[in-house]
């Protein structure tokens, strides 16, 4: 039985006075690939940021391997958990290599230089993400797809057990989208990396995730396998539209079709 890696208990999150999500309790087991879906403004990113200690919960708590993350040091957490934001960038120009080595920050003491082990970890992440040709480029010369790969590589250099991603392919074409999600699946299956990703695209979520967490109306609408969650009634209620769900003939996963013309009747 794989152990529970991350767990939330009666979590409420939001910004300042504004509560966005209430009473969220869910967990992710080791080796699992969990997708967070939901309509715009449902609090997908807020939940992910709370889970990675970027914002603190309004009430309730997030537990990493049984420990309350608000009591863990950030560096200790960063050695176990990495976060990739929606559109990461650098305000000043840095080379890809410099960005990548920032992923070793949680492991290095002040004044400690990167050692051979750190460079080896970097090289491994570079070959996994296939960005070997880019490492001497400046980050702002890259396309958004390449940039996203760089930030995924930087996250891998943190050697996390759990990877959190916020819509990693939001602005990418389907080619890059597939490349990134195939990579994530490979990391999940071969290296047993646990993944939580926020997703916009329901079909992508259905294809790749073991389980889906559907947020709607300020709480969890449903959590379960793609077959359980991507069910037409649940989706229609959450997104306030009309859909048809069919099986993808190749992957046998549920596929959500939208029906045009619903709002003009």
């Amino acid at each position, binding site marked *: 039985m794989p152990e529970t890696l991350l767990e939330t208990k009666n979590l409420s999150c939001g910004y*300042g006075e504004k509560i966005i999500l209430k009473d969220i309790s869910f967990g992710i087991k080791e080796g699992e690939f969990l997708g967070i879906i939901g309509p715009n403004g449902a609090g997908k990113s807020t939940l992910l*940021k709370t889970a*990675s*200690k*970027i914002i603190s919960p309004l009430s309730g708590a997030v537990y990493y391997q049984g420990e309350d993350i608000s009591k863990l*040091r*950030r*560096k*200790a*957490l*960063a*050695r176990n958990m*990495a*976060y990739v*934001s929606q559109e*990461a*960038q*650098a*305000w*000043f*120009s*840095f*080379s890809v290599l*410099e*960005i990548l080595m*920032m*992923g070793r*920050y*949680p492991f*290095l003491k*002040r*004044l400690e230089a990167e050692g051979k082990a750190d460079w080896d970890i970097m090289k491994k992440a570079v070959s996994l993400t296939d960005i070997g040709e880019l490492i*001497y*480029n*400046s980050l*702002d*010369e890259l396309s958004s797809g390449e940039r996203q790969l760089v930030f995924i590589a930087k996250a891998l250099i*943190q050697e996390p057990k759990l990877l959190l991603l916020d819509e990693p392919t939001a602005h990418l074409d389907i080619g890059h989208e597939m490349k990134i999600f195939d990579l994530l699946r490979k990391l999940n299956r071969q290296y047993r990396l646990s993944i939580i990703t926020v997703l916009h695209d329901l079909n992508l979520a259905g294809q790749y995730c073991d389980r889906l967490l559907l947020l709607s109306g300020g709480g969890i609408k449903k959590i379960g396998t793609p077959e359980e969650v991507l069910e037409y009634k649940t989706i229609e209620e959450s997104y306030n539209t009309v859909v048809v769900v069919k099986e993808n003939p190749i992957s046998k996963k549920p596929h959500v079709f939208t029906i045009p013309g619903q709002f003009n009747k």
Partner: protein
Amino acid sequence: MEKPWLKNKKNRFLLILVMCLVLSMVIISSAFFGAVSISLGDIFGNINRNIFYLRLQRIMLAALVGGGLSVAGLVFQSILRNPLADPYILGVSSGGGLGVVIMMILGMGLLRFDALTFPLSSFLGSIFAILLVYRLARVEGRTPVQNLLLSGVIVGTIFTNVLVFIVWIFEDKMAKGIIWWLLGNLDVIEPRFLLSILFLEVIGVGTVLLFSRELDILSLGEEEALALGVETERIKKFLLLIASLITAAAVSFCGIIGFVGLIVPHTMRLLLNNEHRLLIPACFLGGAIFLIVSDTFARKLIMPVEIPIGVITALIGGPMFIYLLQRKKKILFK
């Protein structure tokens, strides 16, 4: 825009070495030029030897102040994620100046400890200024660039004018040549001032150097930095404090010398890249070189009149600021 020649680690050390060499050349040549020209043989004569020592002290001061202000500017830029930040533009220098002047009026009796009280009151003024500017610029939890620059300029102007007002009223109580001091002045009044500033700048710049990795990571933005394990709030506050201390130490003895913290870090960012463990020493060396050269110009340009050093740096820095503002408009205000 990666500089390929910097890929090699050796080249980085070489660059720092070259800058050290340039600095020593600048020091040597500047020591022999001035209102009185000194030849090597003169150092052994009594009168000229004293002039030579005074000049060396002045060069030391210029190096420390220039280096310190550049590193302070660099820290402000990296923390506020804004290439236009500088202790002068943010009003920190004016705050420091006002602090010193207020101390002069209130604490005449304490003047014996001026090597301590000057930087301390300047530090308090600087901290007050940066907090005020930050507070004014903050809207709904964010500090937009325009707000920051605007409130910096406004706070700086108000502080400078309050300062002039106080000087005007209490003219008789003031040390002579306060306006001269205000415009930036590198005269070493007492050698102990030099020691005090050396101590403060070394502590300040050394501390900043310890945080070069955090400064790199902060360029990725708040969220990324937090997720990488950087305690952003604590580190930002601490480094703002240190940058204000560095600025205050410079202002307390040398007045308000503007734009050094803008020109030097920007040039260094163009020349090198943005990795702070290289950028910080480079900025210190570059700032030292820049201010020594500017000071030599100030002394030599229209002899025998000495132009205030702050005027020289403003004449070079002002146009550069406008150029940067024009060029960065696209990026900054998107």
